Each structure stands twice: as structure tokens, then as C-alpha cells.
């Protein structure tokens, strides 16, 4: 069964020169390290809505009730909404305006397929935010995405400085799965791999909420996890920060609000930072952590 080549048999690898201390096992290259910031052009990161002038067929809202409801129905998580008349954009009054709620969007790209003139998928990931209202985007330039365009290294470096300043020690995170599909866990795990290597920024995942400063919670908060999530929250010492990771944790996502789910973890515990995405990529997670620590900084100043 094990496929040992004849070469392996002759020269068993037993540590020493060819073992643990050498780079005999070549699995990493410079290009891979640089790939931390590389996002493929076809990555479905976030939806941007077309500039309002193009929304012509949505103007005169009253005559278009049917097409409006068809448009809303393209979105499985009801992330698309059509605003009422009277909204001001760039000093101009609009008849109707489209918006996408990033806390609900699962980045399936179906809106772009059905209405290519109105929606466009961008490879830039949706920006984490401190409140749900910040996550509703209605024009391409409305999203405050500048900070997230900083490199992974830069965000991580800033984060390390902040953590050092506030805590004088490293930051401890407890991850809680409150019913996720495990997609978010795949990405959170990736933060710990040698490419993203979050520990070098002074951030580490701990085994107990009692050691944690931050709770990273995934999943729509299933009914069966509700009590466990509350208990975990109570076990975490103050001041604490809760981060909702992924569309499910932010809003219930595709699982919504049903007999088995609660429709977002903020129904169970107070949330400080929301990280959109399905699942959010490691860069988005790191940026979400940056916001969280920034908030903790604010909390400390107030007390």
C-alpha cells in the first residue's frame, strides 16, 4: 500500500541533515507566500450594484411591481432590496434605488447572471463592519473598502502594534461553531497555516472561552446551540468582543430563521463586528479582527 520508491528504501529519511531541520520537503515557494494578497479575478467576493443611472427599468416603481418582485426573488437570502422613492444619491433624487445587504449575501453570483446590467460580482471581498447598517451597500463607491485593500501584511502589522499597545500581550480567540456548514471553519483554520500564519501577529486561538478576549462565532445559531453559545459568552471574561463570521452568523444566511435556527447570532449574544462572506476568506477574517481590536481600544478608553 505505501508507495515507497527504491530510493526511499535505500536512504530512509531519519532526521538530521535531510530531516526536520532542513528544507528537504519543498512545499512552499515565494510565489505562495506572496499569494496572501492575490485574489483571483473570478473570485466571487462581493456584489456591487450598477450606478443608479443605469437602473432605468426600475424607475417608475409603481408600474414595475412585477419586475421588482422577480428581481428580489433572484436572491435566495433576500439580500437585494429596492428602496423607495426620494432617496438622495449624489445630490440627485432617485425614483428607486437598489441595495445589497452584505450581511445576507452568500456570494452565489446569481443576481449577476440574471441582471448583468444591474449587478456585478467583484473579486474584492466585502468589507467587515461594526454594524449591520454599514453592510448595506447601494452604489459602487458607497462601500468604505479602502482599509481592506491594504495588504495582508500591513493589516496584520497594524494589528500587532495595536494588540501590543492595548494588551501588552497576545490576543486570545475562542472559535465557536453555532451551527455552521463548516465552510467558515475551513477558512478560520487556514488563518493558522504557514501562509497566513496569524500567530506572528500576536493572535492565537485558545481552547477555552475563559482565556479568550474575542469570540469568533460561525453559523446561524442553531436552536440546539443557543444555550451553549450563551454559556460560552458568559464564560468569557470582560471586556470581550464577539465577531459574527460569515453570512449565517450575520443574518442566518441561507438557513434563515426557522424552527431549528435563530437567524443570526446577534439574536443570542451582542455582536461587535460582522464579517460577511460565504465563507469569508482569510484576509477578510484578519480585517474583521482588526476592527474588533480597534473597538476594544475604544472600550478601554471609555472605562
Amino acid at each position, binding site marked *: 500500500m505505501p508507495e515507497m520508491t527504491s530510493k526511499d528504501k535505500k536512504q530512509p529519511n531519519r532526521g538530521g541533515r535531510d530531516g526536520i531541520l532542513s528544507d528537504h*520537503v519543498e512545499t512552499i515557494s515565494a510565489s505562495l507566500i506572496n499569494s496572501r494578497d492575490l485574489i483571483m479575478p473570478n473570485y466571487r467576493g462581493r456584489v456591487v450594484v450598477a450606478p443608479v443611472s443605469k437602473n432605468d427599468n426600475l424607475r417608475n416603481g409603481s408600474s414595475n411591481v412585477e419586475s421588482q418582485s422577480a428581481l428580489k426573488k433572484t436572491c435566495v437570502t433576500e439580500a437585494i432590496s429596492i428602496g423607495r422613492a426620494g432617496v438622495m444619491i449624489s445630490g440627485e433624487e432617485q425614483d428607486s434605488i437598489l441595495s445589497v445587504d452584505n450581511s445576507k449575501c452568500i456570494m452565489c453570483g446569481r443576481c449577476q447572471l440574471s441582471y448583468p446590467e444591474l449587478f456585478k460580482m467583484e473579486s474584492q471581498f466585502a468589507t467587515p463592519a461594526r454594524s449591520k447598517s454599514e453592510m448595506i451597500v447601494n452604489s459602487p463607491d458607497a462601500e468604505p473598502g479602502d482599509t481592506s485593500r491594504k495588504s495582508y501584511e500591513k493589516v496584520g502589522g497594524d494589528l500587532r502594534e495595536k494588540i501590543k499597545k492595548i494588551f501588552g500581550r497576545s490576543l486570545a480567540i475562542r472559535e465557536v461553531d453555532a451551527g455552521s456548514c463548516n465552510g467558515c471553519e475551513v477558512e478560520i483554520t487556514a488563518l493558522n497555516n504557514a501562509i497566513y500564519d496569524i500567530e506572528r501577529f500576536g493572535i492565537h486561538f485558545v481552547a477555552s472561552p475563559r482565556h479568550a478576549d474575542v469570540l469568533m462565532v460561525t453559523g446561524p445559531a442553531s436552536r440546539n446551540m443557543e444555550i451553549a453559545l450563551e454559556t460560552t459568552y458568559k464564560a468569557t471574561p470582560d471586556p470581550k468582543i464577539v465577531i459574527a463570521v460569515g453570512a449565517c452568523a450575520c443574518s442566518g444566511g441561507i438557513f434563515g430563521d*426557522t*424552527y431549528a435556527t435563530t437567524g443570526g447570532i446577534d439574536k443570542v449574544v451582542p455582536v461587535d463586528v460582522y464579517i460577511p462572506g460565504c465563507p469569508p476568506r482569510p484576509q477578510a477574517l484578519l480585517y474583521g479582527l482588526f476592527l474588533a481590536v480597534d473597538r476594544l481600544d475604544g472600550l478601554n478608553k471609555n472605562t
Partner: protein
Amino acid sequence: MNDHLTLISQQLGERLVQSIHQENQNEIHVILRTPEDTGTVCSFLYQSLGYRLVTMVCSDERENEECFVIRYVFEPGAERQSEQEPQDIFVLVIAKIPQSADPKFPSLVSVIPGASVYEREIREMFGLIPVGNPDTRPLVLHEQWPEGAYPLRKEFDIKTKVARDKVKHQNYLTVEGEGICEIPVGPVHAGIIEPGHFRFSIMGENIVNLETRLFYTHKGVEKLAESMTLENALLLSERISGDEAVANSMAYCQAMEKIANVRIPNKAMRTRSICAEMERIYNHLGTLAGISTDLGFAYGSSRLNILKERMMQLNEKIAGSRILFGVNKIGGVGIDILRHAEELQTSSISIRKDFDKVISMLRSKSSVIDRLRRTGIITKKVAADLQTVGIAARCTGIDVDTRRDHPYAAYREITVSGRGETPKQRMAHRVEMQQRQGDAMARFDVRVVETIDSLAIIQELSARLGKDDDTLVLPGITERLEPFGNALGYAESHRGQTLHWLMIGKDTNSIFRYKVRTASFCNWPAIENAVLNDIVPDFPLINKSLDLSYSGNDL
């Protein structure tokens, strides 16, 4: 196919069977006269013919048929599959349970122990009582769920917020005696993993008994699907278990394509298989890395995780998603990977090269081998009784692989592990199968072999991509669906067989019933046996070596 049909109909006769016929290419439907005969018919299939029970599907058809219907799905057992040519059939034994105040059905547990979890699930979700199943503990809905609310009955509204009943405690089997103590673990665990509760009874460090309690991530997937359109449920099927997105959505699409009786374009089939193998590879790499972490060898794990990250970046390049969301579409695929064919070739070669080095390095460390060998043994008998599937079964010598036994997508045109071409290769495979020990070492080794196989499959298939025309999706499938048409979709995820039974609703863009059974549902019960006589510190290792999904189990 035909000889199975004749054999079954001759043996069972008209006394038991109302009708028996072939449907959806590879399904034999056996409709029983009365549900009381379920035991007789199922034990004939299981004991005399050596079939395996692969799922039990209950549906609430009181509106049209005035009864609940339970479909017991069997497939030919591993012994039959490896001795002869693979037999691509599923036998569905269909029992109609008449509507009454307290509907009942006969339990199969005395013959097929693996039926127990299905029966408990049906009891809770539909309120049908399995007569003769001694295990009456709640499974899915936990103890605060009140009596009399059955989520999968049609009259239950999905938005119902059921008030929490008074707290009753789960009955765990307790072990008593001097020096015995209990360790409760979870549902919130120490690592970045999904929630589940484990209760160990230990004597010193040795595990005397383990009780698992899952379904913390139950999200009502099956009920939710009934309120969705076919397109939307595809997105849901991808999120049954995030790391099995391709396998689950493929099984869902295939069920629908079977109902519509269509064949999707060649290029779509190859794309599906390639993506399914990429999914298998990145997950196997992750599991092997996890095994390395849990046995305390961080170096091996970080090397393997680098390879996993490389695969995930490749995933993103071809599919626009690091975990391959959005690959499948009803009637085909949503991505064109032809332009990446060359990169798939070169990447699979370079990953293979690095992978071989890491693995031979791991194998050279005696501390690695010592921890794995004879740890977490699942015997062949236990695996067979519990209807274990996938890697967990193959590691005990039960040779089942849906890709080979029920070829789908592009697996008809390639040689999947164990389907040797010459008699010598086939014999060598059988001998090798018999030598598998069912321990963590076997699960490590088999994963390594399958990762290498998958890389070879990607190479083989991506070389053929250019030969096909450019059609990616066969349009108009939803128009070809009949109300209440139903079929079984299936795929082999990296964990094992995933089975999706789909029944279209009255409106053909809706779902009447969507029953999902992932490999994890079959394999979780085996872990309680695997840990016996091992020590507590080996539990994470054993758990990781089985690589089970909580979300795929809990739905």
C-alpha cells in the same frame, strides 16, 4: 439489473409484494402489500442476498396517498461488488404506513443494527413509532423539544418557534464501579471544529464507554428545501456540509437529472468529476494534516497544510470559490475549466511530488507510526453491522466506492481505485483489502493512496477536456420534470457515499421531499466502537482519522 429483478420477484412472490418494477435506470422499486412484511423482505435482501442498507427515507404523503411512506434503500453488498462486475442498482423497498392516531412501523434493528439511527430520526421528525427499537432517546431535536411537534410533517410550519420544554436530561449509559469516572466534552470544543458532545466513561486513562450526542448544528435543511425552488435548493445542497459542496450538490443535481431522464454534456461530467477530486484532495490533505497535529507532530501538519492551501488557491482559480461553491448547476456546471486544463496538469504533478516527500518523511518517524498503529480499530464486523461507508469502511476491508459501484459523471471512463483491469490487478487489490486493519494507520494509508489516485484522475480527465464541445449546461431540465417524480442521486464525497432522495412537488419548480444522507450519518456510530480500549488522549486522533462532518450529519 434484470437478474436482480427476476431474483427478487421470484423469491418474494405475490404474497408479500404488490408490485415490483424498474425505474430511473438503476432503481428497483418493491412495493409491499403491508408494512408488517418489511422485516421479512428487508432481512431477505440483507441476509440472503447480502445487500447493504444505505438509507431509509420517510415522507409524509398523506395528501395524495393517505399514508406515510418509508423507502428502505439497499445496494448490493461489497462482496458481490468485488467478485463480479459492479452491479449498478439500488433496491427500494416501499412500505406504506397508514394514517392513524399513533402510526407505527416495524423496527429492523434486530436484523440490521445500522437501521437504528434512521428509525430514531423518523420517530422524531415524523412521529412514527419504530416498534421494537429499544433506543427511544431523542436524536435530532434534543431534550427540550416538546412531544407532538414533528418538523417534517406537512402541517408543521417551518417558521414555528417551538417553546422550550422543561429541561430533561439526556440518558447516557453510565458505567459504574470503583475507579470509573466520566469526562463530558463539548459541545464547544478546544480546537476550531464543529460542535458535538462526547461523554467518556474512563478507568484510569482507558476509555470504557463513549456516548456521542450530535445534532447541535441541526438547521432544518430537509424542511427548508421543501419551501425552496429547485435552483435555490441547489445553493442549500452546497451548504449541507461546506467541505463536501461539490459531492452534495452533484448528488442533488443528479437526482433531478435522473427524474428528467437526461444525460448532461460530456464536458460538464468531466468538470464535475475533476472538481469532486479536487475537493477530495484538499480535504484529505487537511485530514492528514489534522492527524499529524493530533499526534503531536506540528512539522508534518504545517507542511501538509501548505499543500492544502495550494489546492484551495487552485480551487479559487478555477471555480471562484476557495471551497468550490458554485461548481454545479442543474443540468451541468457553472464554470468552464478548459482554460485551466494545463495548470491542473502541472499542479497535480508538482503537488504529487511534494506530497510524496512529506508522506515519506512522516512514515520515517517512528513516533508517528507508533501513535497510529493499532489505534482506534474498527473491526470489519462492526463496520458491516453499522452500514459504514467510504474510507471508514474501506479501511476495514469492505470494498465499497460509489464511483466504481454506481458510476456517475465521468467515472464511467476512468479506472477508480480497485477496479483493476487484469485479473492479477484485481486479485492484488482483494488481497490488499483483506490486509487492512481498520486502525488509524489504515485510515492514514488509504487517504494517502486515494489522494494520489485523485491526482491521477485529475490529470487523466483534464487532458480530455478539450475534446468535447463547449456546452456546459443542458437547458430545460426543470420543464421535463413531472409532479411527484422522484429519484435517488448519489456521489462519493471524500468521506464516503452521499445519497440524496428527491421528490418533486405538485408545482414542478418545488420540492416535496428532499432526504439527505451523507457519509457522516452512517459513520458516526462507528466511533463509539473505535475508541474502546484506547486512551482518552487518542480520541482526537481517532476522531480526526475518521474525518466526520457534524453539519453533514446534523443537517
